């Protein structure tokens, strides 16, 4: 039986880990290597690392940093930030990434997404979509009239492998996810979905999976700032009868 995943989402600014609130207020958390090692010892299901300044600064995530992060990492690793070309994807995979997460370019360049799926396979391409409180696309790097449902439909046409949906209004707040938004956004998705935004306790992961079409919950703040561990979240899933990796 396939297990539901709990995925720590680690944001970096190109160098060090940080945690944002609503993608604005920033708090530094130090070395990505240390953070990764902690998660590795905790046997997390998977890890997503996003360089949130890469697109804005017109660069891709540093492949040497990826190589260093992935050195002792024996779990699936998704890397995102500023990816615009297949060559960048190839470099990141060589450096130790298993999947890449693409946000801005998926809005501006669907031909690139199709090409990436063809070359690397659908399973390698994760489309990251940030959504604001009004259920509109949130992307400070560009102004786009595309609606979230249209964008999701377009990405289905490109046959991408997975979606990473983030509720920006809840992001970093630790006040509980917006279940109705999660349900609405994921209803039309026919691919695996990682959903992030607002998890305040392990029971929130249970609520998200039971109420919305979600395969994996992206969690960040409560692992950085509270006593909760990824295993607490997985135990909560198991206790609720949801398949998860028991340790």
């Amino acid at each position: 039986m396939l297990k539901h995943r709990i995925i720590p989402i680690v944001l970096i600014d190109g160098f060090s880990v940080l945690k944002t609130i609503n993608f604005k207020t920033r708090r530094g958390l130090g070395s990505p290597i240390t953070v990764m090692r902690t998660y590795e010892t905790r046997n997390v299901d998977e890890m997503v690392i996003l360089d949130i300044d890469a697109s804005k600064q017109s660069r891709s995530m540093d492949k040497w940093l990826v190589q260093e992060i992935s050195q002792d990492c024996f779990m699936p690793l998704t890397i995102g930030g500023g990816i615009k070309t297949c060559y960048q994807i190839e470099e990141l995979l060589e450096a130790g990434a298993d999947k890449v997460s693409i946000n801005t370019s998926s809005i501006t360049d669907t031909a690139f997404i199709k090409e990436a799926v063809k070359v690397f396979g659908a399973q390698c391409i994760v489309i990251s979509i940030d959504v604001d409180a009004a259920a509109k696309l949130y992307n400070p790097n560009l102004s786009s009239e595309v609606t979230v449902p249209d964008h999701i439909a377009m990405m289905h046409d490109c046959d991408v492998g997975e979606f990473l949906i983030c509720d920006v209004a809840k992001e970093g707040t630790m006040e509980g996810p917006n279940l109705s938004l999660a349900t609405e956004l994921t209803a039309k998705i026919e691919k695996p979905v990682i959903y992030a935004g607002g998890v305040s306790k392990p029971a929130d992961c249970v609520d998200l999976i039971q109420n919305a079409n979600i395969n994996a919950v992206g969690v960040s703040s409560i692992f950085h700032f509270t006593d909760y561990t990824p295993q607490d979240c997985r135990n909560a899933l198991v206790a609720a009868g949801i398949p998860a990796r028991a340790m």
Partner: protein
Amino acid sequence: MIGVVDIGVGNIGSIYKLLNKLKVTYLSVESAADLARVDKVIFPGVGSFAEAATRLENSGLKPSLQSYLAEDRPYLGICLGMQLLADHGEEVQRATGLGHIQGTVKRMTPSDSLPLPHIGWNNINHDGAALFEGIGAEDDFYFVHSYFFDLEEDCTAFSFDYGGEFTAYVEKGNIRGAQFHPEKSQGAGIKFVENFLKC
């Protein structure tokens, strides 16, 4: 010497890391001459079957890899490296594989409209033999794929469950294939590769 086949598709770095951790020396196999220098082969890969089949043809490695397999020398194919053992693949367009184990790589058709790709951790219905020695029935492995090896030959095979039973592992003599990614499966995966290196 362990050879790791590199035709430029997939997560080759992850395999190198695992071999480094296990402190074994390895050679990146990119040509027939490289293949002649190794006594065990790991063929990892993610991506589409058709693309990999084309790259395998273009690399000039295909005939020597086929004779390596025919001699029944130790081989571990991971994901695409397992699927390429088949006669044909149907991903993107119909393409020809190494043809060592009869069967076709087809798109999975899970029931209950479960989504594809099949991504995440799943347990394998194995009997604890061979490469699964020391690995529990409840241990999960990491999968990420939409296509599976539909076997048409009677050989040792274990399945996983995802709205139906699909091939997780196949073994014919010394030739072995894993649909899952041992290099991404933490403890159980490391054990699995260690078992291959020992055999």
